[in-house]
């Protein structure tokens, strides 16, 4: 059954090709069938393949399928091949399953859009690229998927290309991620030069032998890979593109900028964890990046007006948690949080899509309110999602995965108090902004009328995701709660287990540690309720007060990163392009030409036409030569 592995990415790719070639002759339903159908089939095949993988794991807990040798140049011979192990099983299942749900949702959501076929064309290409990314057996093929998803994110963000602002956001996303990709490709060069292959497993094995732990090469390789991950997963230095990426349709935000693409960085680091184990300093930087991002994005999310931008900042924050987990070599914790986050964040975005569609494209949460009775289904699903995001204890999957990360950040071999403090503060802020959204959007008086009700094909995915957001956490119960953690054992076949050997390990694993996190969450919900329900006007006034306004504005703008990048990078390049439009070197060439013409003008002035002048010139010439002859 594993032999069908190559079908998983092939089906959406086939869907894409079909849509491209038959573009003109397809009506909406046919396009919907091809678009959603191809991903649905791929999900089915994925279920079959991964099911048989889980039920009867192949030798070495990994299955390697090579289609053909991509290129073969003097020892550099990457091939187009797929590698399936526990990590990629998880990613494939999440991508195909969540992807299918979002496709289903899109068939309804994008009903009246004239670029319907084009939308599904790009979406299929995206799913195909993402699957290639996670299934690639070598880093070059991974890079192919990597750039493919970058392209599709650009195409889909600027999908409504009539408005230049959307296209600008699309360009910004693609360029910023490509900056990260440059670091990744440099990493590829370094790795190939050192270990002479880019196939992941042999490369990691060779690295294990030849790299001295902590040596410059190991750290450089790990940092370069981190650079790529930061770009794609919108972490601190390169996170400015994700909030602007919300210009795209909501299903895009749900699929690409919540569930799958932005976690590509997490997958890459998890996949190449050996390199990071060899470079402790690099691991430390990953953790620091994670912590700083989760705090920074958390506070920004707190002050957002736009519903989707708030969710975008929350995504950056949650991925910050994953990076923190990876940083403290809690690889499995990060992967677990990826899965749970995929479900509830996709749910939140899809719900947001319905809300925005219902209120005739109204994005500002302060103009919403009182939708509890109007859109009850959306209210319940959105609240479950928000609860999972805030990690409501015991009932949501977010609790299990985020608490594991918080525990790991304290208790694991690399964990320390600073990370733990950051994680706790982050948890608190997350709870605040998630329930802020709930209170502001669904409670209080209604500002805008609901014009369109969500149809069945939109609600089904919402309910499925809501159920998953509750259930999916149970597959890895914390030790103090219950010994049931089949997910961990499954992941142990591919990733090193988490060792709780830090000095606070005992406290972190104990119920007491969990109690601290739970209390933080509960207190957070209470405060959120107070701030945005009874004292809503007071809170609003407080945030408008002269003392707080500049801080709020600073946070709103994403901590000024955009402002800095604009001045440091964008404006100089634009200025140089404008100044040197007609090519500085050309002036040099024209200068030479001018010199010639000037020489011509002076010489031809010498041709006075008068005979005696000619004799004089001849005489001067003769005199000169004779002088030389006589004197020499």
């Amino acid at each position: 059954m594993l032999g069908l592995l190559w079908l998983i990415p092939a089906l959406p790719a086939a869907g894409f090709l079909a849509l491209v070639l038959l573009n003109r002759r397809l009506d909406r339903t046919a396009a919907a069938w091809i678009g959603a159908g191809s991903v649905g089939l791929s999900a089915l095949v994925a279920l079959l393949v991964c099911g048989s993988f889980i039920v009867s794991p192949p030798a070495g807990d990994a299955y390697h399928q090579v289609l053909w040798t991509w290129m073969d140049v003097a020892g550099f011979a990457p091939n187009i091949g797929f590698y399936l192990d526990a990590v990629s099983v998880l990613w494939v299942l999440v991508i195909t399953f969540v992807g299918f749900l979002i496709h289903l949702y899109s068939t309804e959501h994008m009903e009246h859009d004239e670029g319907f076929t084009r939308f599904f064309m790009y979406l299929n290409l995206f799913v195909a690229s993402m699957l290639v990314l996670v299934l690639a057996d070598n880093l070059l093929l991974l890079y192919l998927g990597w750039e493919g998803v970058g392209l599709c994110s650009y195409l889909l963000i600027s999908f409504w290309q009539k408005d230049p602002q959307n296209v600008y956001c699309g360009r910004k996303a693609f360029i910023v991620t490509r900056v990260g990709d440059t670091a990744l490709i440099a990493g590829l060069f370094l790795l190939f030069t050192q270990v002479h292959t880019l196939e992941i497993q042999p490369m990691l094995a060779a690295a294990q032998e030849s790299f001295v732990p902590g040596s410059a090469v190991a750290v450089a390789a790990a940092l370069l890979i981190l650079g790529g991950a930061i770009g794609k997963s919108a972490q601190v230095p390169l996170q400015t593109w994700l909030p602007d990426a919300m210009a795209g349709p909501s299903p895009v935000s749900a699929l690409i900028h919540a569930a799958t693409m932005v976690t590509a960085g997490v997958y890459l680091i998890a996949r190449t964890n050996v390199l990071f184990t060899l470079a402790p300093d690099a691991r430390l930087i990953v953790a620091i990046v994670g912590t700083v991002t989760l705090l920074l994005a958390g506070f920004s999310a707190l002050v957002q007006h736009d519903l989707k931008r708030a969710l975008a900042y929350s995504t950056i924050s949650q991925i910050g948690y994953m990076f923190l987990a990876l940083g403290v070599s809690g690889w499995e914790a990060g992967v677990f949080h990826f899965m749970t986050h995929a479900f509830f964040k996709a749910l939140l975005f899809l719900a947001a899509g319905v809300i925005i569609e219902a209120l005739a494209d109204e994005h500002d949460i302060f103009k919403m309110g009182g939708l509890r009775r109007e859109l009850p289904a959306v209210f319940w699903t959105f609240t479950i999602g928000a609860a999972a995001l805030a990690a409501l204890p015991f009932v949501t999957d977010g609790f299990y995965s985020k608490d594991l990360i918080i525990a790991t950040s304290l208790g694991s071999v690399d964990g320390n108090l600073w990370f733990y403090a950051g994680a706790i503060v982050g948890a608190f802020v997350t709870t605040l902004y998630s329930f802020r959204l709930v209170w502001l959007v669904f409670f209080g008086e209604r500002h805008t009328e609901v014009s369109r009700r969500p149809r069945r094909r939109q609600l089904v995915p919402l309910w499925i995701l809501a159920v998953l957001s509750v259930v999916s956490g149970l597959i890895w119960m914390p030790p103090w709660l219950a010994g049931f953690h089949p997910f961990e054992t499954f992941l142990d076949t591919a990733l090193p287990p988490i060792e709780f050997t830090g000095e606070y390990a005992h406290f972190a694993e104990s119920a007491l540690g969990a109690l601290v996190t739970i209390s933080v969450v509960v207190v957070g919900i209470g405060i959120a309720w107070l701030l945005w329900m009874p004292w809503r006007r007071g809170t609003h006034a407080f945030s408008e007060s002269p003392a707080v306004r500049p801080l709020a504005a600073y946070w709103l703008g994403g901590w000024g990163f955009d402002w800095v990048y604009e001045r440091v990078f964008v404006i100089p390049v634009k200025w140089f392009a404008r100044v040197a439009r007609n090519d500085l070197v050309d002036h040099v060439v024209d200068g030479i030409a001018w010199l010639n013409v000037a020489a011509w003008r002076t010489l031809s002035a010498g041709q006075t036409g008068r005979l005696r002048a000619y004799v004089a010139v001849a005489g001067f010439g003769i005199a000169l030569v004779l002088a030389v002859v006589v004197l020499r």
Partner: protein
Amino acid sequence: MKAGDLLTISPLIALTLTPVVVMLFAAFRRSHGLALGLTLGGLAVTFGTLFVSASRTARVVTPLVTMDAYALFFIGLLTVATALVAVLSWSYLGRLRVRPEEYYVLLLTATLGGAALVAATHFASFFLGLEILSVSLYALIVYPVHRADAVEAAVKYLVLAGATSAFLVFGMALVYAEAGTMSAAGVAKLVAGGLGSQQVVVTVGIVMILVGVGFKLAVVPFHMWTPDVYEGAPAPVTAYVATVSKGAVFALLLRFLLPVSSDQSSTLFLALAAVAVASMVAGNLLALRQDNVKRILAYSSIAHLGYLLVAFLASGERAGVAAGFYLVAYFATTLAAFGVITVLSTGDRDADQLSDYRGLGARRPVLAAVFAVALFSLAGMPLTMGFIGKFVIVTAGAGSALWALVIVLVLTSAIGLYYYTRLIVVMYVRRPEELELAGAGPAARVAAAGGAAGVVVLAALTAFLLVFGVYPSPLLRLVEHAVSTLPWP
């Protein structure tokens, strides 16, 4: 002077008799066709006698003249060139409304002068040849006496030629006074011996001889007359001046001052090198934005003489071959270019304004093609003889490590590209408004029906240019044979 010697110098004799015959017949019956027929007949006979003379073993005939392969080759070249000029002048003179017969007489005497020069190995024949050539040219330049330009050009040429001949004479006298010898071999021995400090008078003498030669070759200090004479003189005469007069004098220079190239540190060498560089630079620069086609070709010929001097200054037989081949290429190209101007010229004005050539590609495609090939050959583009010519000169230059001269040659020929392509653009670019031509008036109605004979000559020349541009070996072998007879060190 034994009987056999007469056979050896038969070409010169034939060349002397032809003008006399033409004059006699002109005295009886003035007919343009007859005059041309006789001229061409005479030249054919001369060409025939070349082979007769070539078969004779005795080369030296009186110390004045040596009819070796070198001389015969160049006499042949001059005769063919003169024949072509004569045919080109046929329709031109018809339109000029002047009595044509004397024109051919003068043409033949000038060629005789050139032939004498080429065969000269003594000051006397050198001086005589040069003067016969010069005086014939004075009359030829002012042939259309009703044109003010022609008169002005003639005056300038005459005065300057006279002055430089005086320099020549004085130089010869000094050399004769000091060294006692007047023969080419003697001079060559002097130059080879190295004109050290004690032989100042001889060096001054040789320099003054070079003034005479320099004027005729129109190299830089003596180039000022060229544009005015080229513009003023009638088109075929300009063609004649640009080719036969310069070619003959250069052949003589090569024979007399051959050893200069062996010692690259001597004053003479440095002087000539400076002259060559100046000619290349000034020649190309002066023609840059010139709007008169004849003046462009005048300046370009100055530059080409600069290239030839580079070949002259390179040492070894290879340099001689390069100079010889380049001369043939230069002859063919210049004759083709000026031929086109001749065919397009009308009775009252030569077609030398740039505006006359606008859109020529459409009006007269054949002529435009000929002119384009000629210009590409001047620029040294592949497929033309100019390219092979420039290549052999660069090879000769590189062979004797004249790097500075070769680099100057390359860079200045780049400037040349600009004004050659500018002419081509004028011919083939339809929309006049784009051309940055000062005073681009309506295109003068140039002669519609150019002489059929002229077009045939031009076609032949173009074919010659292309064939030997692609496969130059036979011509190279001929030039090698000719040059081998010179006393190479």
